[in-house]
C-alpha cells in the first residue's frame, strides 16, 4: 500500500493512538431526571445517551411473561448523528443492533424478580464515530444499575478491528470504513461473552488476537463504568453540605 494511504505512521494510528489503545471514554450516570436510570457516554467521537424505565407494566399486554420480566431495547440513531443525514426511524440495521444489544444485556438482568413486567432500555445515538453499539451497551448497562435493576454484574463492550493486516483496539470511523474487519465484543467482568459479531475476514489466529484485544478493552471500560457509578454517589453527597447550612 502507498505510504500516504497507510493506517499507521511509525506504528502510531491516524488519531495518534497505539494499536492496543482505547479512545478516551467518559461516562456519567444519572443524567436524566424523568427516567428511572440513565447514563451518558462518550467513547471517542461517539456520544450516546441511555435511559432505562421500569420494571413497569407491559403494554401491549400479550407480550408479558408470567414468570419473568421482559427486556426491550431500542437503539436509535439521531438523524444528525452521521455525516450524511440519516433518515429518522427504525431501519434494518437499528433493528439488528437492538436485538443483539438486548441479548448482550439480558443474561445479566435478574428478570425473575419481576414477573409480568417490562424493563425498557432506550439508547439514542447523538453522534456516531464507529462502535456505537458497544457504546450503547456500555451506557445501557450503567443506566440499568442506576435504575436499581437487580443484575448479576455489569456488561462492558468494545470492538477490535483489522487494518493493514494488523489487529487494533476500538477502531474509529476511518479504520472501520476503510479497514479489513470489525469485531464488536461484549462481556461480563468474569469473561463471559454475551455479544460477538464480526465483519470482514479474520484468520483463526487473527480472530484469537482480536478477541484478546477486545477483551482487554472491555476490562478497561469496566473500570470506567464502575467509577462512574461510584462518582454519581459522591455527587449526590455534595449538595447535602450546602443543605445543612441553610
Amino acid at each position, binding site marked *: 500500500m502507498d505510504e500516504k494511504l497507510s493506517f499507521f505512521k511509525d506504528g502510531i494510528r491516524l488519531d495518534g493512538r497505539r494499536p492496543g489503545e482505547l479512545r478516551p471514554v467518559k461516562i456519567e450516570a444519572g443524567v436524566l431526571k424523568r427516567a*428511572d*436510570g440513565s447514563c451518558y457516554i462518550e467513547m471517542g467521537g461517539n456520544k450516546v445517551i441511555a435511559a432505562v424505565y*421500569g*420494571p*413497569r*407494566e407491559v403494554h401491549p399486554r400479550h407480550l408479558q411473561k*408470567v*414468570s419473568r420480566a421482559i427486556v426491550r431495547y431500542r437503539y436509535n440513531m439521531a438523524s444528525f448523528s452521521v455525516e450524511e443525514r440519516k433518515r429518522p426511524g427504525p431501519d434494518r440495521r437499528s433493528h439488528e443492533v437492538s436485538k443483539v444489544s438486548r441479548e448482550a444485556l439480558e443474561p*445479566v438482568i*435478574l428478570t425473575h*424478580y*419481576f*414477573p*409480568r*413486567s417490562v424493563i425498557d432500555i432506550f439508547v439514542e445515538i447523538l453522534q456516531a464515530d464507529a462502535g456505537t453499539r458497544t457504546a450503547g451497551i456500555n451506557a445501557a448497562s450503567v443506566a440499568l*444499575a*442506576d*435504575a*436499581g*435493576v*437487580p*443484575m*448479576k*454484574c*455489569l456488561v462492558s463492550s468494545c470492538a477490535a478491528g483489522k487494518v493493514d493486516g494488523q489487529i487494533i483496539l476500538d477502531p474509529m470511523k476511518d479504520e472501520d470504513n476503510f479497514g479489513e474487519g470489525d469485531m464488536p465484543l461484549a462481556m*461480563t*467482568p468474569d469473561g463471559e461473552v454475551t455479544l460477538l459479531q464480526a465483519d470482514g475476514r479474520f484468520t483463526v489466529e487473527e480472530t484469537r488476537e482480536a478477541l484478546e484485544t477486545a477483551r482487554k478493552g472491555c476490562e478497561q471500560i469496566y473500570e470506567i*463504568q*464502575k467509577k462512574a*457509578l*461510584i462518582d454519581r*454517589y459522591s455527587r*449526590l*453527597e455534595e*449538595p*447535602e453540605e450546602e*443543605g*445543612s447550612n*441553610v
Partner: protein
Amino acid sequence: MDRIDRRVVIPGELLAEDPKKAGEGTYVKDDKVYSQLYGLVNHRDKISVIPLAGKYVPSVGDTVIGIVGDITVSNWIIDINSPYEGLLHISEYPKRIERNEMAKYLRIGSSIMIRVKDVDSTKKVELTLNDRRLGTLNTGRVVEISYTRVPRVIGKGGSMISMLKKELNCNMFVGQNGRIWVNGSDEDMDLVLKTILIIEKEAHTTGLTDRIMDFLRTEKEARS
C-alpha cells in the same frame, strides 16, 4: 445509619467469601457472595445491599398508601406505586356493600391506607381494608418518594418520624411503597413536605436526624 459501612457497591462486586452471610440484595455463586444491586453495603450479622433506586415490590403484610384507579365488577383496582397494581375485593371492605354501590364508598382517585393481604408467584396483589387502622384518607396530603428512602423517613426506631410529628404538630403515616400521608395545618404541612424532600435527597448520609432537627428549628424561627 450509624452502623452502616457506607461503601457504594455495583452489581457483581464481591462482598464476602462466606455464603452464609448472604443477605438481601446479594446472590451466591461458587460459595461467594456478590452484590446484585447498585447500592450501599450493610454489614450486620448478614451482608446486605441497600438499593439507591428501584421499584417497590409488594410483600404480604406491608401497609401502603394506594390510589383507586378503576372499579370492576367486584374489585377496586388500586395503584400502589409499583409495577403491579393491587386488587381490593368487595369482601375486603370493612362492611358489606352492594356491587352497584362500590363507587359510593371508594371513588376513583381517592387515597387509601391499605394492607397487602396476599401476593402470589405471578405478583397478583390482593389488598385488604379489614383493619380499624386502615381506611380512606379524606384530609391532608399525600407525597410520593422513592420506596428505598422509607426507612430513613421513619428513622432508627421511629426517631425521625416521631420528631417530625412532635415538632410540627402533624399526623403522619409512611407507606412501605414510598407514599407519605401528612395531616396538619397548611403551614406545617408545607414544612413537612419540604423536610421529606430533603430527607429523600440526603437519605444516605450520617447524622441526618440531627441535621433535620436543626433545619426545623431554623425554619420555625424564621416563621415566628
